[in-house]
Each structure stands twice: as structure tokens, then as C-alpha cells.
């Protein structure tokens, strides 16, 4: 509920709209309350008194009320919906910028699908609550109090009888929702299961057919389908045991009013007009009870959604600029790892255990190791995607944590192991870090990454759309675009994380040559991470990482002589090399 209060806090931003909605709501309630009084006047002083003027006058007043009701009704729903859109807008903005700035460790542990649910359906849930349910609850409450007061003033005995419908209907609804909540979730669950089976049968149609599984799948689906119908029938039972009785209650109250009220009219203590008016008010009693009943579960859901949304908003950002952080603007080429230990959040074992080394200016370093050995972690720490658990990383003697994040990351270019393409054009994909880079720059890096010729061969060249709706690219082509993307940045230090693994051998060798040249000419340091020894022979130094430790370092030749592990890796790669996918 605290989170929901914070959502209400956002309403402060839309003070005028909130005021407009509230005023409309109150005026609408007043107009609604006036309508039966006009009935009374028209019947008692017009019809019964045979006064045509009053009849016409009342009719005209009713038209006025109709207009007023229309306007206020519009005002309340328009402003309420507009506010809800504003609230959703603000929440989305808050959550989105938070997700964008949360550190890698958060994203390692969070599931993307869950983050997406929160920023989409959870916020939509809150929006519906603000735009519809909140309005319904408030207006229902106001209406109930207003109408109850009027009824008590008009005829307290009759009022007490009529108002009994509120607790009774409330109780029925409460039972309905409390008792059947498990049933409703069961329906959702079974429907979800059924859709899952349909989905996996569409997705895995080949497997199903290859294993001649069709009869079994049909049987399974039939079974689940029947189960679903069975639960549906149960909910129908629940519905038929609740709502007809609520309607009956409201009808019985009408009868009580006609009976008692009629008797009072016969005794001369009540007029026919009053009786009709009283009866008309009854509509405004049952409706609010139903609305509040239906809004209750929505409020509970919205509260849960708000909790989940604020969980993200309140999540601490682990990696931030230290106070007084300085920009990283010059690179001398001396990177020092000082007894670096690092453990990923939630992991049992440290990923790095006391790694120490120092680079010389312009040195080209290769990092070699098995999957999971910790070789990518080394560069992740350099870029401060994570901070070391123990020890320190320095560039030219200065701790990386003293630099501002933006400057550090803008001067260190990295090509990730897994390539991500964004929907948009090839130009936009390469110019990811510099969205307004001139085309000539983009072409230049594309040439270096050996992807320019391919792009030129496409009918729309650099304007070709990629991503879900665009042209399909092979793994190797994607990697080359990722390389170009990084080459376009203002890197002084360049890191390639296994970034030509899917490129065919010939092209990979050519790219490697060009990159070697660039790394020597343009960078103060460069790192190449690889699983395959063949890609790193030209490095000045190879760091061999094994189970989080720096197992050996040296040139290819030195390591062949001194490191048994290196020899073993070399041998295993000779025996069973992976053929890269052909046709890239």
C-alpha cells in the first residue's frame, strides 16, 4: 500500500487535472441527486396538481440536468484518463532510466522478461487503476454517502430498510471474490497451460511429426481442454450463486419501498412523487456497491504492481562516479592489475583470484582461457562494469574507480562476445555510439571490419534495415558489424572479446591483420580475448587464465616451452577444431 501512496504522490504533478476530475465528480453526483427530486416535483406539483406549467418547467429543468450530467461526466472521465496517462508516462520514464543505469550485476541477476513485464503490464495495471477503478471507488463512495443522506432526510424509516441492501450485497460480493479467487487463478493457469501446449506444438511441429507424436499430443490437448471447461463450469456456478441474488436483493428493496411507501401514501404521510423519487434513488445504491466490489481486486493488483515497479526504482546502483571523479582523457598505456579478486554477486566461487599484471605502452595483450575461466571478467573490471572485490586496477597509476564512468567507457572500446543488432538501418547500427556520425566515417570503419563490400552489395546499402523486420544476417556478418561499431568510438584502449568466432577463417585472418595494425597505431593498449590459439599468435604477450588465476604469461613460443597447460590446450585444439559455419 505504501507503493500505491507513492503513486498518488504523482497526482500532485497534475494538480489542475486532479482538481478538474474531483470537481466534475462532485458536481455529477449533485446532478444525479437532483434528478429524482425533479421527478417528485413533476409528479406532485405538476401531474397530481394538474399544473401544466410545472410539468413543462420540470421537463426543461431535466434537459438542463441532462446537459450538466453529460458535461461533468465527460470532465471526470476525461481528466481521470488523462491523469492516468500522465502517471503511466512518469512511471515508465522513471523505470526506464533506472533500468538503463543499473549496473551489470543487477542485469546479470534480473530476468529481462521480468523487467519488461514491470515496465509494460505492471504500469498498465496501475494506469487502469488510476484511470478507472480509483474514479469508480471515489465516486461510488461519494454517491453512497450523498444518496443515503438524502434518503434519510426524505423518509428515515424507508431509508433504513433500503440501506440494508448495502451490507448484504457487499457481503455477497465479498464472499464471491474471497471464495472464488483460487478458482479464477485456476482458470487463468489452465488457460495459460493450454496455450503453452498450442504454442510449443506450433514451435516444435517438426519434432512432433518426426517422433510421430501427433496422437499423444492430441490426447494431451483434449485432456487439458476438458479440464479447462470443467473449471469454467465451476466459475459459472459461482457466478450464478452470487449475481442473481444481488439483483434479487435490489428488486426486493424496490418492493419494500413500494409496499411500505405505498402504505404511507395511503395513510397520507408520503406523496406519490416522493415515492417515485425514492425509488429512483435506489438505482444509485446498488450500482456503487457493485462497482466497489469489482474495483477491490483491481486495487489489490495495482498495489502489487506498484510494489514491483518501485522495487526497480529503488534498486541501488552499484557502480557510480565517486565524488570528485576525474575524467579519463589521456592514456599512457600502463594498466596495472594489483592482486585483483572478484566474485560475481550470487556466485559461490570467486571469478578472479589474485590476478596481477602490468601492461607496457602500446602492448598487444592476448587473454586465453577456457569458457568460464574468468578471461572476460578481466576486461569487464577494466571498464568498471563491475568493481573489484579486492585489490585494485590502475591506469597509469590511477585507480579506475577515480575516473568518471562516461570518460572511462568512451575511451575504452570493446567488442562483446555476443553481438547485438538493433532494429534500424545498418548505418544506425554502426553509428550506435555516435548517432550523428558522418557516413564517410561509418564507411571507413566498415571497410576495416570487412563488411563494407557486403553492405554495398545490398540494394539499399547502409540504409538497409536489420533486426526483426529487416534483412537476416549471418553470425559472422553480425560480428563484423559489431567490430565496426566499436571502431567508430573514440577508443584509446581496444578490447576484442572473441569477436571473430563466427567469421569464416579467411576473412577473420584479414580482419585480424587490419586490427593488428590499428591496435598498434591507434591504441595505447589492446586486449584480444580468445578461445582459439590460432587467433592470438601475433600478440606481444599472452595471459593464460585458468580457474580465475593467471596460470602463465609470455609469448606463444615461451608458453609452448614453459606451460604444460598451454601445450595441452594447443594439442586439444589441433585434434578437434571447430569448423566455423560455412557460407558466412
Amino acid at each position, binding site marked *: 500500500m505504501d507503493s500505491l501512496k507513492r503513486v498518488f504522490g504523482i497526482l500532485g504533478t497534475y494538480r489542475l487535472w486532479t482538481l478538474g476530475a474531483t470537481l466534475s465528480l462532485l458536481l455529477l453526483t449533485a446532478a444525479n441527486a437532483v*434528478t429524482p427530486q425533479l421527478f417528485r416535483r413533476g*409528479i406532485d406539483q405538476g401531474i*397530481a396538481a394538474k399544473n401544466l406549467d410545472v*410539468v413543462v418547467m*420540470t*421537463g*426543461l429543468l*431535466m*434537459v438542463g*440536468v441532462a*446537459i450538466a*450530467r*453529460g*458535461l461533468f461526466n465527460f470532465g471526470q*472521465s476525461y481528466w481521470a*484518463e488523462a491523469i492516468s496517462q500522465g502517471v503511466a*508516462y512518469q512511471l*515508465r*520514464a522513471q523505470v*526506464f*532510466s533506472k533500468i*538503463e*543505469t*543499473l549496473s551489470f550485476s543487477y542485469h546479470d541477476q534480473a530476468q*529481462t522478461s521480468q523487467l519488461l513485464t514491470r*515496465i509494460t503490464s505492471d504500469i498498465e495495471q496501475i494506469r487502469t487503476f488510476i484511470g478507472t477503478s480509483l474514479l469508480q471507488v471515489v465516486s461510488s463512495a461519494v454517491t453512497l454517502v450523498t444518496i443515503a443522506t438524502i434518503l434519510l432526510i426524505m423518509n428515515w424509516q424507508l431509508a433504513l430498510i433500503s440501506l440494508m441492501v448495502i451490507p448484504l450485497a457487499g457481503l455477497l460480493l465479498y464472499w464471491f471474490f474471497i471464495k472464488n479467487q483460487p478458482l479464477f487463478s485456476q482458470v487463468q493457469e489452465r488457460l495459460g*497451460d*493450454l*496455450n503453452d501446449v498450442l504454442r*510449443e*506444438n*506450433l514451435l*516444435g511441429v*517438426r519434432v512432433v*511429426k*518426426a*517422433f510421430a507424436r*501427433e496422437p499423444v*499430443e492430441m490426447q494431451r490437448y483434449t485432456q487439458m481442454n*476438458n479440464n479447462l471447461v470443467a473449471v469454467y463450469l465451476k466459475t459459472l456456478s459461482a457466478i*450464478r450463486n452470487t449475481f*442473481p441474488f444481488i*439483483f434479487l436483493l435490489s428488486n426486493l428493496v424496490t*418492493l419494500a419501498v*413500494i409496499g411500505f411507501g*405505498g402504505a404511507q401514501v*395511503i395513510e397520507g404521510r408520503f406523496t*406519490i412523487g416522493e415515492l417515485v423519487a425514492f*425509488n429512483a434513488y435506489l438505482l444509485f445504491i446498488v450500482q456503487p456497491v457493485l462497482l466497489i466490489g469489482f474495483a477491490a481486486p483491481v486495487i489489490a493488483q495495482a498495489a502489487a504492481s506498484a510494489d514491483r515497479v518501485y522495487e526497480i526504482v529503488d534498486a541501488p546502483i552499484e557502480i557510480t562516479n565517486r565524488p570528485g571523479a576525474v575524467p579519463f582523457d589521456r592514456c599512457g598505456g600502463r594498466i596495472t592489475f594489483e592482486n585483483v579478486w572478484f566474485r560475481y554477486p550470487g556466485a559461490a566461487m570467486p571469478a578472479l583470484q589474485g590476478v596481477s599484471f602490468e601492461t607496457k605502452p602500446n602492448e598487444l595483450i592476448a587473454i586465453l582461457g577456457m569458457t568460464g575461466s574468468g578471461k572476460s571478467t578481466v576486461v569487464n573490471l577494466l571498464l568498471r562494469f563491475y568493481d573489484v572485490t579486492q585489490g585494485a586496477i590502475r591506469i597509469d597509476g590511477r585507480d579506475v574507480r577515480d575516473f568518471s564512468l562516461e570518460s572511462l567507457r*568512451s575511451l575504452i572500446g570493446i567488442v562483446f562476445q555476443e553481438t547485438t543488432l538493433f532494429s534500424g538501418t545498418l548505418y544506425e547500427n554502426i553509428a*550506435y*555510439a555516435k548517432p550523428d556520425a558522418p557516413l564517410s566515417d561509418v564507411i571507413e570503419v566498415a571497410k576495416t571490419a570487412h563488411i563494407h563490400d557486403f553492405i554495398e552489395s545490398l540494394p539499399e546499402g547502409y540504409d538497409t534495415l536489420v533486426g526483426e523486420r529487416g534483412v537476416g544476417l549471418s553470425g559472422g556478418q553480425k560480428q563484423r558489424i559489431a567490430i565496426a561499431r566499436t571502431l567508430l568510438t573514440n577508443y584509446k584502449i581496444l578490447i576484442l572479446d572473441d569477436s571473430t568466432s563466427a567469421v569464416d*577463417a579467411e576473412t577473420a585472418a584479414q580482419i585480424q591483420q587490419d586490427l593488428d595494425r590499428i591496435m598498434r597505431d591507434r591504441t595505447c593498449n589492446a586486449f584480444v580475448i580468445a578461445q582459439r590459439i*590460432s587467433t592470438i599468435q601475433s600478440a606481444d604477450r599472452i595471459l593464460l587464465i585458468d580457474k580465475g588465476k593467471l596460470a602463465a604469461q609470455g609469448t606463444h613460443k615461451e608458453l609452448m616451452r614453459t606451460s604444460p597447460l598451454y601445450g595441452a590446450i*594447443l594439442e586439444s585444439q*589441433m585434434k*578437434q*577444431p571447430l569448423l566455423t*559455419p*560455412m557460407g558466412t
Partner: protein
Amino acid sequence: MANAPVAPEKKAANQGSTVSRFLGYLKPYQKEMPFALGAVILGAATQAIGPFLIGWSIDNLITPGNLAGLIGMIIGLTLTYLIGTLAIRAQIFRVGAIVQKVLAQLRQDIFIKIQRLSVGYFDKSEAGDLMSRLLNDVSVINQAFGQSIPQILGNTFSLIGIIIAMLLINFQLGLLSNLVVPLMIVTTSVFSRWARARFRVTRTTIGELSARIEEDVSSVKEAQAFNRVGYNIDAFEALNAANRDANVDAVMVTAAFLPSIDFLNTLATAGVLAYGGYLAVTGAATVGTVTAFLLYVQQFFRPIQILSQFYTQAQSAIAGLERIFLLLDEPVLLQDSPNAVVMPPITGKVEFDQVTFGYVPGQTILDQVNICAQPGQMIALVGPTGAGKSTIINLILRFYDVTNGMVKIDDQDVRDVTQGSLRRQIGFVLQDNILFSGTVAENLAFGRPNASQAEIEAAARVANVHEFVTQLPQGYATPLGGGGAALSQGQRQLISIARAVLIDPRILILDEATSSIDTQTEGLVQDAIAALLKNRTSFVIAHRLSTITQANQVLVVQQGQIVESGTHAQLMKQSGVYANLYALQLGATQEQS
């Protein structure tokens, strides 16, 4: 926002025939329908009679001061309402049950059709597109029809009941009050047209916003590494604001809709009060009549509001229904021939005799391909993407029929045997390993649902997955939810392999995975595949040298033709395409030794 009608973007091309075909689904319930409809009509009638009796009581009991008569009337009304309650109760259940059973039958028909359709259909209509459309259509129909049919029925009859009652009580006043109904209908259709244009904009903006959210949230690491966070937030801000503004714009229309209907309704009330009052004053009507009309007019509102809402829902549901009927009418291209026999136990000879094939007429994917695999041989298929390797496999499994030539297994044309009996004897391990909801054991026993636990475990051991499975919290009974998300790529592959082991096929088809698997699992996968291939005729789309060197025949496929064939050693000697490929890919490593 849920309360405004929006005209659907796409209407069904032929609503009439779609609806009447849907009504055909009601046939099995012919006996139950009269009762259900009777309940609906009775419920509506008791509702319609109430105001009349109240009005009558005012004129004939209350005004003359007949207290005993009033009490009698109240008792009578109570009974009427009780009957009404029972009728509504019956209506909710009877109508609801029929609708749910009809929908279940429709879902069933869809599922069965999907099982019958040949693989070609799913290739043609892009799987993702078909799937999302179908799932969406099914859920729209479930929702719209599940809720709206009972509501539409109930409300239509109430409305008719009210209109009839009014006309009967006082024709003139009835005619005047009913004038508002066509006005409400016109208003509804005008609003739904206004709303359509605006909602088209909101659909676009929300689509753009969602796409941006999805992409950016899944690539936060890139954004941070490339210092693009600020740019992304600004870009998002623009879309977010555009979406808000479009929605606020649309709300303008939707927020005006119900008030307009309510306005018309109140206007009708005013008309009743004024004209009815005039009639009463001049003696042409009674106070009771006017009262009854005031009550009736107030009851207009709900049915019309509900009908207008469901009108639009029903429209999109009918459009979905039409697409579903199209699917149900889709011809099944690949059927067992009328005199197809059950494939006897296979020994494992596989032959392609001058096979030519294209997925669409005029296209040639395979061009006069000849293959002959002797029982127990391993055939490696090598070649660039799109050369036709997967097509060869599709034809062995008879996912498609050849355009020309013949595919023979044990000298039997695959078209002469039943599909089930053929495929049940062929094992199949795909690159993307699809797991199904259900337990690990059920997934392993996918091809042999009645396999014993011991058999399942034995297969799991052969596939090197037993140890991993026993480490799971519930062992073999561990459920694998929604696509088996909890397992790694390598573990999924092991399960796929065990699946194939369990059916003990004579012919095995294997599409080697190229995606990287962690080193440890990689070893397990290699061993499992080796065990699986033993003593079976196998076709392997090969990416690994170890597979190729062991193969009895290496077939190099290029542009739909087999350009080279032989053992690894023979092909190396030929110094042709294969030798080149081999040298290129191994060059780097060899230089070092």
C-alpha cells in the same frame, strides 16, 4: 477506456457465412438450447413486467387506498422476482456452459488441424507470425464469445422486453421514448468511427514504445559500454510522450461516449416527464403510467451500453474466427496414400533416386540427387548454408514429397507407407532443441510415451544426461516449464539426444549444433552423439571434423547438387571443393605445428 466502442480495424470479409458456420457448432446442443433460451426470455420478461406492475399499483391500489390489494401485489411481485432470479440463474449456467463447450470444440478442431497439416504449411506461413496470430485469435474468441454471447443474449432480450412493454402500456409515450434507441445506435456508430482513427494512432505509438522498451531493456550492457544511456533515455522520452499524448487525444473521444449516451437517456427521461405529464394532466395517461415509463427509460441505458461494447469485441472476434476457419479449411497436402502400408521394421538402407525438389513450384532446391546409404553407414552432409542439406533430411522424413524421382528406405518408396510408421523408426536431433512442458521424464519419453522408468533412465545414461537429471530437485519428475527455460543449451541437447536414443531408431538424423556449449558439456555431447550413432544408418549435417573423418561417405552439397562424395581421405586426395574448404578452415591451426 474500456467503455468506448472502437470500430475494428479489420472486419471479416464474409461475416454472414462465418457466423453461420460458427452457429453450426451449436448443433450438438439442440436439446439444451430451448431450455437455455427459455430461461433468457423468462428472465427478460420478469424484468420487463416489474415497472408495469408498479405503475399499475400506484393507479389502482395506492391512489384509491387499497392496502390489502397492495400487500397482495407485493407478494405477487416478490414471486415474480423470485422466478426471475431462478431464470437468470439458469440462464447464466445453461448459456455459459454451451458457449464454453462450443469454444472448447473450436480449440480442439484447431489443434487437430495443426497436427494434421504438413510441415510445408508451417514453413510457408512464417511460424512466428502464424503462431502469434493464432494464439491471439483463439484468446480473442475465448474472451469475446465466452463473455459476450451470454451478455448479448440477456441484454438483447431485456431491451426487446422493455420496448414491447412500453408500446403496450401507452403507444404514443412508448413511441416517443423509443425514439432514443435509434439515436443511441447512431451515436455509438459515430463514436466508434471517431475512435478508430485515434486508436490507430495509439496502437502505433504503443507499438513503437514497446519495441523500444524491449530492445533497450535487453541491451543495457551495450548502452552502458557505448555511453548511450543518455541518448536512449532521450529517445525513449520522446516516444513515451508521444504515446501519452496520443492516448490523451483518444480519451477525448472515449470519455465523451458514455456521457453522450447518458445524455440521450436523460433527455428521454425529460421527454417522458414532460409529455407524460402533459398526457396525465389532460387525462390521457395516469400517474402510474408515467412512473412506469420513468422506470423503463432508466433501464435502457445498461443494455445499450453493454451491447455497444460487445458489438466491437464481437466484430474482431468474428474476423479472428474467419481466419481460424481458413486454417481449418487448409488442404492437407501430404497425406497417407489410400493403400499405404505400415512400414515394416527398417534395416536402414536409404536411397535417393534422381531426386529433384523445390519448396514452391518452379524452384529447384535439389537437382537430380542420388544417394545410397547402406545399413549402418554414417553419411556426413557438408556444404554452405542454403545448399540443400536440410532439404535432404526433410525428404528422408517425408516432411515433403519429391517433385521428381524417388526416396526409398529399404527399397520401399516412402510415399507408399504411412507417415507415422515411417517416422517412428527415424531418430531426429535438431539444432534448436525444443523441450515441451511436462516433466523431464515425459520429455525424454517424447517418442515413446509408454516407456518404463528403467528404459528412460537407460537412455538417459547413454546420452550422458542421467547424472545431471538426478541432480535436479525432483529428478526425473522435475517439470520443464514454458520451453524448458531453466536448462542450458547443452543440457537441452543432451535431452534431445536421449529422446532419440529411447526410440532406438534404425535411421538417425542429426543436425550438429554450431552454437557454443560450455567445454564440459561439449565433451558429454560428443560422447553421447558417438554412442547414438553407433550401429545406425545416420545422416549428419556436419560442422565438426571428428564427425566428418569418421563418416563412411562425405557428401559435399552445393547449389542443390552433390558435387563430391567419398570418404574424408578420398576427398582430400581429390583436392577439390572439400579439400579447399578443409584447408581454409584448418589453415591457421596447422601453421602452428
